[in-house]
Structure formats: structure tokens, C-alpha cells
């Protein structure tokens, strides 16, 4: 039952509601779950960038180091970086000791600003792409996310890393130098727990994204990851994978996508017509479908078309 006083209170709150509502709207909901000995995971929303989710669509992994927390990927904005920094200090009051960026996509890297004074590791091409395209990527993020992005500057990784064994803040890691989702995709295996942090080479129950895809290279990367027989996989997007399903699902989807689009070219379809192709149930039920499929059509169709259509002169 609503008392008169409570009702007036609600009315009074109404005057401030737009502001408090806006602030609430622009607060990221950060929750790290322990998934192993000194390993935590934050599962991002299985969605596309929106003003509702603030771009918090990516998985973040944490590893316990000797002097603090090793952070893998930093999220879409400085506001997000600050939010995970706070949450990380609940786990280890010393905060972040080192950072990895798995690849250059903004949802994985635009939280770097908060950790700019720490070593931020990435593969070399990630840095050169950020130097070339960082501002354009930031413009697009501001367009899609609006006020969530306020104050966000592009901060490039400040340490280059190569494939091989590495000791980062006392934690033994295997660094894998891969590609195919983008020009350079880094994955990590934590030697202590056997956990594979796959970046966006592996997706689970969320449709893979293909704006920079090199499909043969991506498949080779998936084969490499499968050969590791990791104890568990933290995919770039989607839930923790204890069984390797993320690798199989990503591989199957990418093969289906390529077969379907090459077939559409050979049937004489245009991009817009190919976007209307209905998905088999196992891919239709992935998160962000059919939107992600349609984006993939625009990414991949022109190349397949040039390869499949016969020369006419």
C-alpha cells in the first residue's frame, strides 16, 4: 500500500528523476566470477553495441599476479575501465599490475586509459592499427554509445609481446600469436590452471563478428586452439566454456557462413537479398542474430563475389 507520504516522496523524487536515472543508466554493472585458482571472468552482455548496454558486450578475464591483477582486455570506455578498476580492487586492493589487449577492436581496448601507467601488452599489428584507425574507431563508438564514452581517449598498448612462454607479474603464461578475426589476435594460456583466454577467435552462443575476418587464417587459429586441449576456455564473447564447444561452434558457423554466401553469389543474389536468407535453427538461436549475420553479409559478400563470378573480359 502506498502511503500519502511515500507518494509525496515519489513526487519529490520525480523532480530529480531524470538526472538520477541518467546516472544510473550510465553505470556499468560489473561482476567478476571466480572460475579457477586465481582466475576470474566477467561475462559481457551477448548483444551489439547500444546506448542501453554502454558497449559492455565483451568478456574480461583476470589472473592473480604477484603484485596485483593481470587484466585481459579493458572494455569499451574510460568509464568502463574505472568501473572494472574498482571491482578489481575488491579482489586485490593493489589493483591492476599488467594489462593485455587481445586485439584492436574497441570493445576490448578503449578502457586502456584507466591503466595507462601500467604495462599494456599486445601484438605489434594491434598497435599500428590503433595508431592508424584509433580516432575513427573512437568517433564511431561515440556515435553508437553517446555519453557512455565521455572523456574516453584512445590509449595504445605500450609493450609489444610475441608468441611464446612469458612470465608476467610472476604468473607463467603461454602467449599465442594468432590472427583471422583481425590482423592480429592474441590468446593466452594460464599455466597454473590450463585456462585458455581465447579473445575473439572463439565465441560461444553469440554470433561471431567478421568486420576484419580472414577466414582461412581464423580456421587455422581455431585448429591451434583446439590442439591445446585447454582445461576451460574464456571466449571473447559468451559464457565460460568447459568443453571446447566455443571452438567447434565458431568453426562450424564460419564454414556455414562462407558456404552460404558463396552459394548466394552463385545463385545471383545481391547483398540485400542475401541478408534475407533464413538461418538454420542452431545459428538463428545464437545471440545477436540475424543482425550479426547481416553485418557479415556486407563484410564478406564482395570478396566472395569477386572470386566466384566468372571473368567477363
Amino acid at each position, binding site marked *: 500500500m502506498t502511503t500519502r507520504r511515500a507518494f509525496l516522496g515519489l513526487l519529490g523524487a520525480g523532480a530529480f528523476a531524470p538526472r538520477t536515472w541518467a546516472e544510473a543508466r550510465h553505470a556499468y554493472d560489473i561482476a567478476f566470477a571466480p572460475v579457477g585458482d586465481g582466475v576470474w571472468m566477467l561475462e559481457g552482455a551477448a548483444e551489439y553495441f547500444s546506448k542501453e548496454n554502454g558497449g559492455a558486450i565483451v568478456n574480461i578475464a583476470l589472473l592473480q599476479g604477484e603484485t596485483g591483477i593481470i587484466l585481459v582486455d579493458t572494455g569499451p570506455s574510460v568509464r568502463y575501465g574505472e568501473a572494472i578498476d574498482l571491482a578489481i580492487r575488491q579482489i586485490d586492493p593493489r589493483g591492476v599490475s599488467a594489462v593485455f589487449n587481445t586485439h584492436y577492436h574497441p570493445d576490448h581496448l578503449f578502457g586502456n586509459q584507466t591503466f595507462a601507467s601500467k604495462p599494456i601488452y599486445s601484438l605489434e599489428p594491434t598497435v599500428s592499427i590503433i595508431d592508424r584507425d584509433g580516432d575513427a574507431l573512437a568517433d564511431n563508438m561515440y556515435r553508437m554509445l553517446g555519453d557512455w564514452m565521455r572523456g574516453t581517449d584512445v590509449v595504445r598498448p605500450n609493450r609489444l609481446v610475441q608468441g611464446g612462454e612469458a612470465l608476467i607479474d610472476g604468473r607463467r603464461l603461454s602467449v599465442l600469436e594468432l590472427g583471422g578475426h583481425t590482423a592480429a589476435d592474441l590468446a593466452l594460456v594460464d599455466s597454473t590452471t590450463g585456462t585458455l583466454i581465447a579473445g575473439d577467435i572463439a565465441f560461444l552462443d553469440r554470433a561471431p563478428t567478421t568486420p576484419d575476418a580472414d577466414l582461412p587464417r581464423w580456421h587455422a587459429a581455431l585448429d591451434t586452439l583446439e590442439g591445446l586441449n585447454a582445461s576451460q576456455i574464456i571466449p571473447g564473447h559468451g559464457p565460460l566454456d568447459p568443453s571446447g564447444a566455443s571452438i567447434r561452434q565458431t568453426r562450424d558457423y564460419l564454414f556455414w557462413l562462407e558456404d552460404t554466401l558463396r552459394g548466394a553469389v552463385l545463385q*545471383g543474389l545481391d547483398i540485400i537479398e542475401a541478408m534475407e536468407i533464413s538461418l538454420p535453427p542452431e545459428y538463428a538461436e545464437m545471440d545477436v542474430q540475424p543482425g550479426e549475420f547481416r553485418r557479415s553479409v556486407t563484410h564478406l559478400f564482395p570478396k566472395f563475389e569477386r572470386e566466384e563470378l566468372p571473368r567477363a573480359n
Partner: protein
Amino acid sequence: MLVRSLSVLATLFWAQGAMALEGPQTPLEDPMRSGMWDYLQVELLEDPADIQFDSRIKLSAPVSADDSSSVPLLVDATAIDDVARIIVSADYGPFPQILTYYPEHSEPKIALRFKIDQATAIRASVQTKDGRWHIGSTYVDAAGGGCSVPAQAYADADWEEKLGEIHGKIWAASSRARVVIDHPMDTGLANNIPVFIVQHLDFEDPDGERLARIELHEPVSEDPAFSLYFEDGTMPVSMTVSGRDNNGNTFEGLLSSDTVTH
């Protein structure tokens, strides 16, 4: 006297200018409410008297352009009879006109890809043979910059060897033709690279009769790609596509079906 005449002249010019600002002779209620339509109705379509928005003209494009240098668009005006030409345009951007399509013996329907510079209304202005205009619209959101980035071709050292390569085919069963022409389609706005675009493409049947013509402008995407559609039973067994760019390069290709039926 001279001074007075000059001032009368000046007044006349001013009045004409003011009239132009007052808008088109046939004001329309723009379903996209874009703010630029009145201007384009006058400048691009030369202020026709008989003009209307027409929901029978369907434009299909992604709601949001993922790649601003290549936005797919399908224009379908098959619900309109006796179409003479279709002008495809963007309200906002450095070049409003994308292309003009003359479906002489083809259906008034065309698929294309174009560069987009910002979020904008996209129009298909369809003129019938009696001179009337029917306008279809859609809206595409975009990150922008599509007209001012260099063509991706220049990332490859051998782009000049591929210039003018044509890929394509016709499909008799579905009465359509598709063609892709390798060309950078430079708008002149990127990195001091001068304008370098294919200006027109003609499609002819084996007897040399023209079936359709496309006039291209700067916003057509790099490596222009088009689908043309025909009425059932009107597809020739093959067709030639020929074109020319503004540097005088000419291209010609033969589109045929790979299934031989006798």
C-alpha cells in the same frame, strides 16, 4: 538612370534568389523530414511541377551502415509503369547524386553499393515517360567519412593491372544479371587523389540493342557492383557491358549464363 537600372536589376536578382529560397513550386511533405529535400527537389530534379512521394517504390538498405565505403542498396520501382529513369541520391553528403539508371528494356529495379558520408535519407526519384516524378525514400545511419577515405585498391601494388577487370554473369532462370567492375572510384576528396570514376555503363543484347544504361557519380562504391533485373522471358542469352571512366579508359565485358540450354 544607369544606377537606377542597376539597382532594379539587383532587386530582380535578389528577388529571384529569394524565390529559390522559398522552395519548390510543388512543396511536398517529406516522410523522412530531412531538411534537405526541398533543395534537392529544385537543384537535382529541376523543380518539376508533377511530383509526389510514393510508397510503392521500395528502397532496402541496412538501418546502420557497418562500412561507410560500401553500403548495399536495392531500389525496386517495379510497381510503377513506364519508368524512364531512376535517380538515386543521398540528402546529406558532398555529392548528392549517386547514379541515374535508365531501364530501357530492363525492370525498374537495381541493386548497387555506395559510399556514405553521414547519416542521411536516401532517395530513388523515379521519372515516368510522361515526365511525372515519384519519390521513394529510406534512411541509413552511418559512422561517416565514406567519401573521404582513399580507395582500398591502393593497398595493393598491382591495382592498376586489375583496373577495368569485369566479373559477372546472367541467370536466365531468375531473369537477372550481375556485374562487378574493378575501379577505385576516387571521389577527389581523399589525400589529394583527383576524381577518377567510371562515368557510364551500357548493357546491350547480342544484336547491339541497348537494354539499359547506368550513369555513375562519385558516391558509387569502389569496384562498382550492380544487379539488373528483367521481365521473365526477356533475357537475352548473353549481354555485353561497356563503359568509360573520366580518364578515357574504356571497358567491355560479356555476361553469359554458364548453363547452356538448347
